[in-house]
């Protein structure tokens, strides 16, 4: 784990070099980078990535924890910085700070059933969980991945999803909000898939990542099925300027999402997410 060195400047990035870039969707790319002295990370953590001359933004790490030779990020182009990031080609350099944030408590779920619910680009931050689950398959109980995308053309990591789906040791269901004629899968919100999923609620740990509205529905659905609120973990997003609790932007109630989160359990978030514009 990355131990902060009080003698160095936490706002100072190191240079990272892009080694590979894959286009996932029309507006989403995944790239791999190298960084000297990378300390490794835990699932759910994020980096602050800086495109020089454009800006710096938080981006979750979407690769496997076990391979610390490369750092993988999946980025959707939504605004100036993410656009500039998504446009970087292999060989390009950028600034990196991290990893930061409280991780998904994956290892704590060993011996239990695991449900992963992801919506849209939310699949990227939970992918490290899935790698851990599969690398240590025997350590976990039943594993379910429920994924919702807006439309079939917006399904992220399509090939990987297919591979996971063909495994016999995990349940993978994919649904879309809107479907063309040739779609034969589920249509509708991802939470609708919860009921049919196979897990033992009392012994289940859930990981939820996606738009806030989806998080709310999924968490409520899971509690309705009997999963304890403290066993439901979710990842939150707020504006972040520093990623380390100094800038103040990411506060939600008493929490700094960057350093206290971004991963929280539902017992903690539910009362806060109920308050409008908190």
């Amino acid at each position: 784990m990355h131990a902060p060195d009080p003698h160095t400047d936490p706002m100072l990035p190191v240079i990272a070099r892009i080694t590979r870039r894959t286009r996932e969707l029309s507006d989403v790319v995944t790239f791999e980078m190298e960084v000297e002295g990378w300390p490794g990370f835990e699932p759910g953590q994020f980096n602050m990535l800086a495109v020089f001359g454009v800006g710096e933004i938080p981006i979750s790490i979407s690769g496997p924890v076990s391979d610390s030779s490369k750092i993988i990020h999946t980025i959707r182009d939504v605004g100036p910085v993410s656009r500039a990031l998504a446009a970087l080609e292999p060989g390009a350099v950028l600034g990196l700070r991290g990893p930061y944030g409280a991780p998904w408590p994956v290892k704590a779920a060993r011996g239990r059933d695991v449900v992963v619910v992801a919506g849209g680009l939310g699949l990227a931050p939970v992918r490290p969980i899935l790698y851990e689950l599969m690398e240590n398959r025997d350590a976990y109980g039943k594993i379910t991945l429920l994924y919702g995308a807006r439309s079939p053309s917006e399904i992220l990591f399509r090939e990987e999803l297919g591979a996971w789906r063909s495994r016999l040791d995990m349940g993978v269901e994919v649904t879309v909000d809107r479907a063309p004629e040739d779609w034969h899968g589920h249509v509708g919100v991802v939470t609708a898939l919860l009921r049919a999923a196979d897990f033992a609620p009392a012994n289940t740990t859930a990981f939820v990542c996606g738009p806030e509205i989806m998080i709310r529905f999924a968490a409520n659905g899971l509690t309705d099925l009997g999963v304890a609120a403290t066993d439901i973990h979710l990842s939150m997003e707020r504006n972040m300027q520093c990623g380390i609790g100094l800038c103040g932007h990411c506060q939600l109630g008493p929490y700094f999402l960057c350093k206290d989160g971004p991963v929280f359990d539902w017992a903690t978030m539910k009362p806060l997410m109920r308050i409008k514009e908190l």
Partner: protein
Amino acid sequence: MTGRPRLAVWKFSSCDGCQLSLLDCEDEVLAVAGAIEIAYFPEATRREDDGGHYDISFVEGSVTTPHEAEAIKDIRARSTTVITLGACATSGGIQALKNGASTKDFIDAVYAHPEFIDTLDTATPISDHVKVDFELRGCPISKTHLIELIAATLAGRAPQTPAHATCIECKMAGHVCVMVAEGKPCLGPVTHAGCGALCPGYARGCYGCFGPKETPNTAALSARLAENGADRRQIRRLYSTYNTNAPAFREEAKAHD
């Protein structure tokens, strides 16, 4: 945009001050000319509009004549990015004071042969006529903003022209609040930042030349101005200057008719 982007500078009804700001960037103007192709800028060059496409069009001034209302459509059609410069282009400018008044009375007041004058009844912002990609505030715009806008556009980042109150710049500059410490009326709390809080730095209240900020609470400010002794007419005048046609200011002036 490959190569140097082509820039055009267009003028509508205005005082020329905002486009002059570009020539007032003495330290940067040659660098600007190096980084972008100044293809059309009649105030600075004899080169004529070649009728072609421009990557960036800077538009100064408001629409006050039928001819202008037509011209802006053509400019939009020939520009990738339309950026308005200053209060005239962004809210109508000082000449929008004629909105609501009788144009005929105005013409009669100034010209001996009113029949020679061709003008619309209103002075309106560019965005009333065509889609605008970015608006730079101020009467006049700030040079720093202009250079920031050009640098940001070239770098592909968002320009830092925050929409918050002038008060933030005022406090950052270390000025003492003229409203609190001297009781002077100041529009800083409802005015878009950008000038660096010039007026309070010169011991006067902000007169709102950058127009309304995000979520301006003009009613609450007016109530305070009244408590400090401003009468209705003064309050109306305060809001009725260079951004008189910006909705938040217009409504607040109207509430003090």
